[in-house]
Structure formats: structure tokens, C-alpha cells
């Protein structure tokens, strides 16, 4: 973990509630897809954990949904705004797990961390299928970007406006995807349904209300099959067999 000052270089709405923010500065603290950052915001006591969508030297991309005071403040930030950010929080996905055909499943605002993961897996020569679940057409974002990386993209919408009607699990069943490992991030009911329906091994990124975000307050602890773990420190990514539903 590192504490750095990053500058907002772009902050645009992708859908009415989903924003893409680019931050410039020293982001060398970010080392793996699936990690998150903790952003300090004026007037709010606790930092806000936001998953990392993508990172390159000197630049970080975050995609966040406006759900409360913190993300509302973020959505109003102009280019040039400087932010106090803790980078490199959490473990991230295991991109070196041995597999040939990984299946990546994202739901709503759980989609962003899968972007960098897709990039890393494709760079390792893997055949990546990405299943993205949204409520409706107007909430879809980044599907084209996943395709541009070279992934096969399948979309599910709850109302059927695009792709398969229903949940990501319906889309996986209908499309007959072949996969030997899975990675997922999204709402808890989706992760649970996925872990129950997929026979292959995999890992899921969990969410929990955090205090500090770096392992000292025990605010986000969960029980796992391997004992108590902190979502912010040992997680947010856990192996399928570790999670107690």
C-alpha cells in the first residue's frame, strides 16, 4: 500500500449513474488486477474504497457508481482536482492460476476490475470469455472495450433489452461456454448463484462495508472455511471454496 496524491484527468458519465475517472500520478502501488484504492474526500470521515478498472504507468482508471455521498462528490470533481489516495489495497485476482479458458463474470458495477484482469489473461495467451450482466440496455458500459481486448463477450440483461434475458447464470447456461476456471465480481446473490451453478474452480471478489481499508480495524471481517479473514486485506478476492454463503 502507498499513499499518493493523484490528479483527476478525466471524469465522465458512462451511463446516468456510472462514471469513469482517470487519475494521473505515481500509481506504482497498484500491482494486480482486482485491487482497490481508498480515496479521501473532503467532508467525509472515512475513505471510499473503489476497485481499480485499469492501470498503466502514471495512470489509473476507476469506474464507480453513484450510490451515496462519497461517489456523488466524486462525480462532481473537475479535471485537475487533486486526491489523497491509498493505492494497492487488497490482494487482487490470481492471474497466474493455471487454466486455458477462463470465464470472467461481472455484474453491474462489479464489471470494472474484470477489465484489467481480461487484459492480463489475454497477455498470457488465454482464451477469455466475459459474461457481463446488467439490468437494462441503458446501464451497459465497457462491453465494446472488452471485445477490443480480444475477449468473447456475452451480455445478459434482466429485462432482455440486450443479449440473453435474465441473469449471468442464464447466459452461461444458454451459450454453452466452455471454461476451466472462473473469476467473478458483482452483487453477492450473483456470486452465490454462480458458485453454486459452476462446477469449475474459481475466485470471487467480495464487498463489505469497510472502516480503514488496510487491515487494522477488523470492520470488514468475514468467516471463511479457512477462518476469519478481512475483506480489505486477505481479500477482496477469495477462492470459491473459501466462501461460506
Amino acid at each position, binding site marked *: *500500500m*502507498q*499513499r499518493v496524491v493523484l490528479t483527476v484527468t478525466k471524469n465522465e458519465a458512462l451511463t446516468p449513474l456510472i462514471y469513469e475517472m482517470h487519475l494521473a500520478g505515481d500509481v506504482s502501488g497498484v500491482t494486480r488486477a482486482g485491487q482497490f484504492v481508498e480515496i*479521501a474526500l473532503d467532508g*467525509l*470521515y*472515512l*475513505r471510499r474504497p473503489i476497485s481499480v478498472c485499469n492501470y498503466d504507468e502514471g495512470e489509473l482508471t476507476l469506474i464507480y457508481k453513484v450510490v451515496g455521498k462519497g461517489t456523488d462528490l466524486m462525480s462532481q470533481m473537475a479535471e485537475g482536482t487533486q486526491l489523497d489516495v*491509498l493505492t494497492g489495497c487488497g490482494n487482487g485476482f490470481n492471474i497466474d492460476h493455471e487454466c486455458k479458458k477462463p470465464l470472467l463474470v461481472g455484474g453491474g458495477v462489479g464489471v470494472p476490475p474484470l477489465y484489467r484482469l481480461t487484459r492480463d489473461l489475454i497477455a498470457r495467451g488465454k482464451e477469455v470469455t466475459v459474461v457481463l450482466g446488467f439490468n437494462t440496455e441503458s446501464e451497459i458500459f465497457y462491453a465494446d472495450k472488452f471485445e477490443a481486448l480480444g475477449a468473447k463477450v456475452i451480455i445478459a440483461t434482466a429485462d432482455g433489452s440486450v443479449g440473453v434475458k435474465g441473469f449471468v447464470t442464464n447466459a452461461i447456461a444458454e451459450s454453452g461456454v466452455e471454461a476451466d476456471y472462473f473469476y467473478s465480481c458483482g452483487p453477492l446473490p450473483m456470486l452465490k448463484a454462480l458458485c453454486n451453478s459452476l462446477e469449475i474452480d474459481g475466485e470471487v471478489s467480495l464487498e*463489505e*462495508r*469497510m*472502516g*480503514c481499508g*488496510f*487491515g*487494522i*480495524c*477488523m*470492520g*470488514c*471481517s*468475514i*468467516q471463511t472455511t479457512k477462518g*476469519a479473514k478481512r475483506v480489505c*486485506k486477505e481479500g477482496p478476492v477469495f477462492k470459491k471454496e473459501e466462501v461460506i454463503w
Partner: protein
Amino acid sequence: MVRDLSVELCGVRLDNPVIPASGTFGFGKEMAEIYDINILGSISFKGTTRDARFGNPTPRIAECPSGLINSVGLQNPGVDAVIAHELPELRKIFRKPIIANISGFSIEEYVECCQKLDKEEQVAILEVNISCPNVHNGGMAFGTSPESAAAVTKAVKAVTTKPVFIKLSPNVTDIVAIAKACEEAGADGITLINTMLGMRIDIARRKPVIANKMGGFSGAAIFPIAVRMVYQVAHAVKIPVIGCGGVSSAEDVVEMMMAGATGVQVGAENLRNPYACKEIIEELPYVMERLGIEKLSDIIGIIE
């Protein structure tokens, strides 16, 4: 001019009065990854109970203006695991005296934990927490009456030769009476305050934000209450006081000491700024210079 930041707590000399408060610094490991924690005066480690505890269900955290409510519920690996695993690790990264924070659900449990931690060389002070608002049938229950506070104090004093500080709850009508009862029962010092009992409601979901409904409110918002209680207690007892509650800056440390604190704990601020203690310690000499303080211990309790 070299400013003297050192203070002495019952014969234990600290290079400076700044101590991370229990539960906001773990056992030092995570913080040692980002800075050399030997800059600290001491560390009050994560509240330890006889048996391992997972603690309360999540959500355990609710944000508030200038603070937060937590309902962790004393998650810890239990005193034996703390002695076997955490303290040897802490010894590698921190070479100064440490404060062992102990919690319990019965007088017997407090006694057993104190007996075990008494044998640990690096433990300089036992801080007995009778003020945790997040557990039932124990914790705070001992800290809300002078009689039970005295009973715990007497029982643990009988099994240790180390200085015993009793950590008090602010959720009482007469903090002075409880502090005096601890002093009379043999306490070597008082730490105050623990968190204030608080609650938040998610008005859209019509549910408490915290799974356990209520929790301990801490952070900058409670600083004035902590200063007031430290002032009241420090002037009523002869034993030293460690001030705690909402301390967020070097100026707050000075204020707490002027109110009567010899040591000063920094809690919630560590959660929002992992470098809080380090920055406060580095800032202290400048604040002293500005205020014309040569020796920090000179200002302890100067407010009459």
C-alpha cells in the same frame, strides 16, 4: 533547541506520549509495512480476550460526521495465540514497551488474561478494558458501576506486578466516581475514554446501518467530551491518566495533556490516515516551539 517529548507512566519511560489506541493499530504489522513504527511512544495492542472471538456480524461500520461507529465486537485470536504468534512478530518490528489491552466477560477471564500477559517481558503496562460497548454480558458492564470497576481492578492487581491501567467508558453518569473507585482498588492509572454508544439508521432501507444496531462512536467529534472527562478524572485522582478520544493532531495531544493526560492515544484517526501517529509525532516539536513548550511533561494538567 532540542525539545523533550518524553513522558513517564508509572516508571515506564516513553520517548513521546503518542500511543495508537487499542483496536486501531492491530498488532502493528500492517502499519510497519508503511513506516517504522519505532517512532511511537508505545502501542496499545488489539483488545485480547481469553478465547478467540470472531466478533459481531457485518456491517460493523457506520460513518458519521467527523467520526464513525464501529461494532467489531472484540475480534481477536485469544490470549494464547496473541502470546504465541502476535507478540513475537510485534517484537521484531517494535523494540519499545508495549501496552497489553485486555477484555473479558467475567472477572476470572480478566484475571487469567492478565496472569498470562504479566509474564511477557515486552508488556510494560496492562490496560484493562472494562468499557467495550459492543459485547453483551461483559465489557462495558464492568465499567458502569464503581463497585464492579473496583472488583475487576482488585482482582487483576492481585495477579500482576506490572502497572494496571483501567480503561473507562464514557457511557456513565459519574466518571469521576468510577475512576476514584479504581484508584482506591489499586489501579496504577486510568485510560479514558472508550467509545460513546451510538446508532445510525439507513432511512431508505428503514434499518440500522450496523448489524448489531448500536456501536461505539469515535473520531474527532468526541474529542471535546474526552478532554472534559480527562480533565475531570485527572484532577480527581493522583494516578496518571492516558487520554483517548478523537485525538487527530499534535495540537490535540497538547490539549489533552493540558487537561491532565500523561499519555495520549490516537484511535479513529489511524483508520482514515494510516500515517496519523507518525505525522502527529513529527509535528509535535513544531507545535511545542510555537507554544513555547520546552518539555512536554511540563504541561500535564496545567489547567486548574
